[in-house]
């Protein structure tokens, strides 16, 4: 579904992404991991067309990202920080995005109701807490049942109940054969959810493997243990 070929992006002298090639397929739940500043957000933004790639190409369902914007109809994006115009209400924000999408009749409003946003729909965005804003962002990302979900730190700032609701929803969408791309620093949140792991460091792709492969290789079950053991080994090699 997403094919990235030799993607390179530099900001001045700094190489944010260095020659990255990736193939992501349907039904996968891919975790995008890496330390701060490793290029995760730049990669996501390149897929969304927010960052113009320097070299290389990105194709989604066979369509080149740089060509036109229609491919984005098949993507649901949840940003890391959701900031909305101060005086809009929750209802207006959702209405507006629906209007932009030409108001499809069947919208997936499950998260909207399960998060209880319908009870606070007349509240202005300015007055909302960070967590509630995250809930709005999540509801928007899942509203149009897209084929691809791109979730940037989706669980940051959510309370435990909302966290579970969101994880259930992600798992359900994955089971329906959607592609989910998640970045998160809370590895325990990703346990049991992800099928593949992409690890970036200094803009370079360190590895892209399925969780089973990694488990077999390291002999660990938990995601944080797996990552820790791989990083330790790499440090030994470089020393």
């Amino acid at each position, binding site marked *: 579904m997403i094919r990235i070929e030799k993607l390179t992006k530099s*900001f001045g002298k700094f190489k944010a992404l260095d020659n990255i090639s990736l193939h992501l397929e349907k039904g996968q739940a891919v975790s995008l991991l890496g330390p701060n500043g490793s290029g995760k957000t730049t990669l996501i933004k390149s897929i969304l067309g927010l960052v*113009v790639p320097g070299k290389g190409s990105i194709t989604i369902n066979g369509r080149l990202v740089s060509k036109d914007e229609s491919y984005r109809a098949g993507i649901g994006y949840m940003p890391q920080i959701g900031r909305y115009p*101060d005086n809009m209400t929750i209802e207006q924000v959702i209405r507006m995005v629906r209007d932009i999408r030409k108001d499809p009749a069947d919208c997936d409003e499950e998260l909207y109701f399960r998060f209880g946003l319908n009870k606070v729909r007349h509240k202005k965005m300015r007055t909302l807490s960070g967590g509630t804003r995250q809930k709005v962002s999540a509801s928007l990302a899942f509203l149009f049942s897209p084929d691809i979900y791109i979730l940037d730190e989706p669980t940051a700032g959510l309370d435990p109940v909302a966290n579970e609701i969101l994880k259930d929803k992600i798992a359900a969408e994955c089971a329906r054969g959607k592609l989910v791309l998640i970045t998160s620093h809370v590895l325990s949140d990703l346990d049991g959810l992800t099928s593949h792991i992409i690890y970036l460091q200094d803009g370079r792709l360190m590895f892209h493997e399925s969780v089973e492969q990694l488990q077999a290789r390291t002999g660990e079950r938990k995601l944080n243990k797996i990552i820790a053991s791989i990083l330790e080994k790499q440090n030994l090699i470089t020393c």
Partner: protein
Amino acid sequence: MLTVSKYVFLDLLKNRSILVYSIVLAVLSFTLLGLSGGSAKGLLSLLNITLLFVPVITTLFATIYFFNSLEFIELLLSQPVKRTGILLSEYAGMALSLAAAFILGVGLPLLIMVPVAASFMLVLTGVLLTFIFTSVALLIFVLSKDKTRGIGAAIIVSLFFTLLFDGLMMAFIFTFSDYPIDRALVGIMSFNPVDLARVLMLLQLDVAVLMGYSGALFKEFLGSATGSIYSVACMICWAVAPLLLAIRVFRKKDL
């Protein structure tokens, strides 16, 4: 595209700064028009207020608002929409709501107290200036790397056009006063939308000759009608050119 404008407009109408801006303008208008009995005198005072307030407030407020909506613009751009459309609708929503605030704050008092043609011209001048400086703010927004620099640039640009430009022009006139620079001055003035607005209004009030060198020059070279048309045309260019440039830059910008 229009949908986004509509929501931006609705959001800004409820914005407290816009409300305060409108109220301050209204209070100033009523006081100035009430104080000075003659309509021309009142209009002149109000013109000076407009020429100072509108560029500074518009540029600063619009720049800050655009930077605050950066994350929201990113979210909108993750939808199947064109970049140009989103930028234009942000611009339209902003310019229209500031223009509405100006029309309410200055236009309404004028309509009640001095319902003459020149009053209409003053409102038109203010609206044109609003569109021009919103355009400039949008250009500053797409060119600046971060909010702090953007706001700094907005302050400098608005002060340049409202205060500094006149000072530079004075220096130019003094330095080259021995040469025939009259025509050149008319040309130089076209580079400042605030001066164009002033001339446009003064030509209407028939006090052009009283109000300094530039006004007299305009009257002499172009006459009232041609002068007015010329300055309106220049002002429209001032609104359109930065907007087009901003779109050009924004198309290739990394967000």
